[in-house]
């Protein structure tokens, strides 16, 4: 019995690959298995190879598997491009329509079955149901019941028509029978039964959007961009349920400025974008910092620079998020690592934005924002709304006629009470120009120094809660450090290496501003060697650590920037290699 299985479906974009993977993943998630599903797609709408790699496990995983057990192919290209991932004894199921053949280097190691997906689908009603036939064939190989996806088909098509559900079911069954008719048994592919669980399945973008709505967001101005658009699309569907509004703006510049306006007038508000859009927002980001408006910006990193690799994974916006905008402003940058964390990061982001009155960036990466993963149910009890320091009625009543409210009052911790247009007694001025306590432009030397300090010193060098996490040996020979979605592959590599007797620790960074200097240094002090793993070409996290003064005598960086996330085996191999080098 397998504790986990790795399955991939591939074909041309527009062929329903995504929905095939989704039906498969959702069905197994409902059965209680844990899913991690990563989509490979190109920056075009139709045509071009696409695939969906689904890992099914009895325990929670945050990474794709290193290998493949089953490959379902709707064209020869899928086999040519992906067969190398198959483990010895793996299975390829291809549509007989294109006469599938195995590449020479895999022949003998893997099994190929040609099943007439399209023909069977046509016999059952329509060619588009070939993906259902493929799911049926998969079910037979895995020893699943041919009904395994019926509940999902019911939720997908039940509202449209019962007939469509039945047709799809029939196609699944026909695929199952066709595979069965091959007269081969697959004892090695059966999964151990799942532990009963009712976890959810979602992508990081949905989790951020859901978290935002739970946190009371009401206004979302945004401009579509891959891979951030799902955040907006989710909120377009759900915000009206709470009376909120999404505006698809003319560009990202308008999006963040509108967000600032809504925040100024008292709404909880966010925008979501990816690298290029975030670049366009830099001027407004400075305005939000200068005027101390709480705004939340989701940046789903993708491959750069420029328009770069719109549909590929990278973690290269760290410098932009840390240092972006001209001049100097204080901001918070959260870097959640899992979909579950995305939800709570969104909740925290709105609270932090209002408590510290500064921009908060929730920075994810493509793998985190788009990969579907199993998530434990969220708890509304853990969602607390803290609107920060607001002017009281008593304070406002004391403001005489003609007097202006000290919106930018210089307080001990730099945070001043907020008022909103519409509140009597609260009239003041807001400007991106250096200003005094009532918001009047003031270029005086003393004023500028005091106001810079007020805005910059809100955190006083402290770390936000849960800025880092740690697992593994407390005094490791090797400490692995990562940020964002790499928590999955690093964590798995850590577990495997420890099983092999290597003393390994894994520190993960969940907030990069304020930078968690103290906790990271304490982990590093206990380790003999430190390696930072990140998905970019220049080692941004590695250099940020040095920028903030973190030191270690054996400190190195391992980078991957080919557009795909790390696999556990790559991290494992690098650590083994570096251990040898280091011990020498």
């Amino acid at each position, binding site marked *: 019995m397998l504790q986990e299985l790795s399955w991939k479906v591939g074909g041309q974009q527009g062929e329903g690959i995504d929905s095939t993977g989704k039906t498969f993943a959702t069905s197994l*998630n409902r059965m209680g298995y844990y899913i991690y599903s990563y989509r490979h797609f190109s920056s075009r709408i139709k045509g071009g190879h696409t695939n969906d790699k689904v890992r099914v496990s009895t325990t929670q995983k945050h990474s794709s598997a290193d290998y493949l057990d089953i490959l379902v192919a709707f064209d020869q290209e899928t086999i040519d491009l992906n067969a190398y991932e198959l483990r010895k004894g793996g299975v390829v199921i291809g549509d007989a329509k294109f006469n599938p053949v195995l590449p020479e280097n895999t022949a003998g190691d893997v099994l190929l079955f040609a099943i007439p997906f399209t023909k069977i689908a046509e016999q059952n009603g329509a060619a588009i149901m070939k993906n259902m036939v493929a799911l049926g064939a998969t079910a037979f190989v895995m020893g699943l019941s041919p009904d395994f996806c019926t509940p999902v088909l019911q939720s997908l098509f039940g509202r449209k028509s019962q007939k469509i559900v039945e047709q799809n079911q029939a196609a699944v069954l026909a695929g199952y029978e066709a595979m069965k008719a091959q007269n081969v048994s697959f004892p090695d592919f059966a999964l151990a039964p799942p532990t009963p669980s*009712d976890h*959810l*399945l979602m992508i990081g973008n*949905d989790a951020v959007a859901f978290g935002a*709505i*739970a*946190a*009371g967001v*009401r*206004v979302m*101005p945004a401009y579509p961009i891959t891979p951030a658009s799902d955040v907006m699309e989710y909120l377009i569907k*759900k915000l*009206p*349920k*709470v*009376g909120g*509004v999404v505006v698809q*703006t*003319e560009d990202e*510049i*308008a*999006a963040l*400025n*509108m967000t*600032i*306006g*809504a*925040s*100024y*007038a*008292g*709404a*909880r*508000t966010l925008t979501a974008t990816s690298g290029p859009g975030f670049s366009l927002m830099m*001027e*407004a980001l400075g*305005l939000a910092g200068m*005027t101390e408006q709480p705004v939340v910006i989701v940046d789903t990193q993708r491959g750069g620079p420029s328009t770069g690799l719109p549909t590929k994974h990278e973690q290269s916006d760290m410098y932009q998020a840390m240092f972006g905008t001209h001049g100097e402003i204080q901001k918070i940058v959260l870097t959640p690592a899992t979909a579950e964390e995305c939800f709570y990061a969104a909740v925290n982001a709105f609270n932090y934005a209002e408590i510290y009155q500064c921009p908060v960036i929730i920075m994810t990466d493509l793998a985190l924002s788009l990969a579907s993963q199993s998530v434990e*149910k*969220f708890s*509304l009890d853990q*969602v607390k*709304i803290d609107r920060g320091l607001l002017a009281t009625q008593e304070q406002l009543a004391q403001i005489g006629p*003609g007097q202006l409210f000290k919106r930018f009052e210089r307080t001990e911790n730099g945070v001043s009470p907020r008022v*909103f*247009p*519409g*509140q*009597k*007694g*609260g*009239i*003041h*001025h*807001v*400007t991106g120009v250096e200003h005094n306590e009532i*918001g*009047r*432009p003031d270029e005086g030397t003393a004023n500028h120094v005091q106001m810079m300090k007020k805005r910059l010193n809100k955190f006083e060098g402290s770390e936000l809660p849960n800025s880092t996490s740690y697992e593994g040996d407390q005094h490791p020979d090797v400490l692995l450090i990562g940020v964002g979605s790499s928590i999955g592959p690093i964590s798995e590599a850590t577990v495997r290496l420890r099983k092999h007797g290597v003393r390994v620790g894994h520190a993960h960074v969940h907030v990069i501003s304020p930078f968690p200097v103290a906790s990271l240094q304490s982990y590093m002090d206990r380790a003999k060697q430190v390696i930072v793993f990140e998905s970019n070409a220049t080692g941004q996290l590695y250099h940020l650590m040095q920028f903030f003064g973190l030191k270690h005598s054996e400190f190195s960086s391992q980078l991957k920037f080919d557009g795909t996330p790390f696999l556990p085996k790559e991290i494992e191999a690098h650590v083994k290699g570096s251990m040898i080098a280091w011990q020498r």
Partner: protein
Amino acid sequence: MATVKEFRNNVRPNWCPGCGDFAVQASMQRALGNLNLEPENVALISGIGCSGRISGYLNVYGFHGVHGRSLPIAQGVKLANRNLTVLASGGDGDGFGIGLGHFMHAVRRNMDITYVVMDNQIYGLTKGQHSPTSAFGFKAKTTPAGNIENAVSPLQIALSAGITYLAQGFSSDVNQLTELIQGGIEHKGFSLINVFSPCVTYNKVNTYEWFKEHTVSLDQFPDYDPTNRAAAIAKVMETDGLCTGLIFKDDKKPVFEDLLQNYPQEAYLNTKLEMDQGLFDELMKEFA
């Protein structure tokens, strides 16, 4: 009930003596006073440039943003609290140069916002470069041999983009300007009041005298119908964009706010933000 006086504050504008913007400030204050609005219920969002400073010169909630972005900020303010009277303001460079895209889309979106542009056909605060509304041939610091670009016609653009209230005023006529701004605030929808507001320091061509000579008041045409968009476009073209008065008005087009599903009448500030367990569970169920 607030009067004009209550919209004044004691801040001395940093505009040059004789600047047309003083008249815009006075007209805005008079319009707000005439409408008996309370200062705390008015938000004035401005851009960058001499004109952008206006948000600090009225006793209302003022927000001085970044160059060309007053309209996106103003729309955000309106969305958060539709009960506010939201004014946006800036100059020709701010609104029709860097902000032209936002202007087109604000017109298209038709939120209930009043936009007052102080159009002096030159960049004043940066000391005398040509602006998007400078005429062809106009000589400025950046066009020493004469402007070889054609001027933007804000009126034609606004009409073509579907504006629902369009007027043009002149700083020399505070009474008319007050009326036009007042009409814009009263209008339910997006309104533009473009104001010829001469720059006495840098624009030696488009002076008060020049405008007096060249502008055409629509009051001269008793048959002019400001509800006919095609006629308005024709009149703007015929007068080379130099007509003053109410140019166009459409009271029938719904505003953005009214088309939003479940959009509350109340400001979000005063509504409950906490999510009900029922809705939370319903949303979670969709991920099962």
